[in-house]
């Protein structure tokens, strides 16, 4: 059994900023449950010029996740513990908004698969989808917070207040 959640969202920031924010997104005030973020693999594929990254994210209470990204920024995040009870796979695609190059479109698709059995599968999946929708809202708030910080820093730098 599989349940699917789909969502499209627009950040009013350009693609460069949004993808940088994806790397910088933790810590932020909307993600106090995130304990650690580590890059365990990262390289530019010499044939395609695609940047590939594997990250390990430790979350309190919930589940560790990992994500990888390529160009146009496609990311996959999935839990590696409790995967038999419930496997959540979140795919995200970050693209330049076709109507405004200064904005970024994000398409999210999540698949929740449970093998719990005893007639509980459906309820576990329903719970997974609801939980996912809630945390997706939180995660957007966190990204927006980081993006605002990046914008401020760029403005300051543009005015010559920052030298770094």
């Amino acid at each position, binding site marked *: 059994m599989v349940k699917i959640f789909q969502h499209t969202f627009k950040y009013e920031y350009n693609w*460069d900023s949004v*993808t*940088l924010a994806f*790397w*910088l997104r*933790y*810590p932020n005030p909307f993600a106090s449950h*995130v*304990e*650690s*973020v*580590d*890059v*365990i*693999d*990262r*390289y*530019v*594929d010499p044939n*395609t*010029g*695609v*940047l*590939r990254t*594997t990250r*390990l994210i*430790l979350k309190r209470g919930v589940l*560790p996740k*990992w994500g*990888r990204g*390529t*160009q146009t920024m*496609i990311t*996959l995040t*999935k839990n*590696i*513990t409790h*995967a038999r009870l419930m496997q959540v796979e979140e795919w995200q695609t970050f693209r330049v908004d076709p109507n405004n190059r200064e904005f970024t479109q994000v398409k999210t698709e999540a698949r929740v698969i449970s093998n719990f059995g005893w007639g509980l599968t459906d309820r576990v999946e329903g719970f997974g989808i609801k939980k996912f929708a809630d945390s997706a809202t939180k995660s957007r708030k966190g990204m927006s917070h980081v993006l605002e910080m990046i914008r401020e820093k760029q403005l300051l730098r543009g005015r010559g207040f920052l030298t770094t």
Partner: protein
Amino acid sequence: MSQSIGRSCDELKKEYDTCFNKWYSEKFLKGDLRPECEEIFKQYRDCVLNAVKNKKIDKLLGEARKDDPFSSVTENK
């Protein structure tokens, strides 16, 4: 900046993240794909993999990394 899974790796992580963020925004996004930060990444990564082992999640991580979910995505391009 976020913390590392291994508290003893925090300093290395900070140094690596700073290096990567600078490279990503100033080089990679502008089309310069030549790798940088490799020496510090090696040190940081070794520290993290060690911590992963100590926390006994190395097997889980190995399992999760077996499939290559992006191969089809990249081939389609």
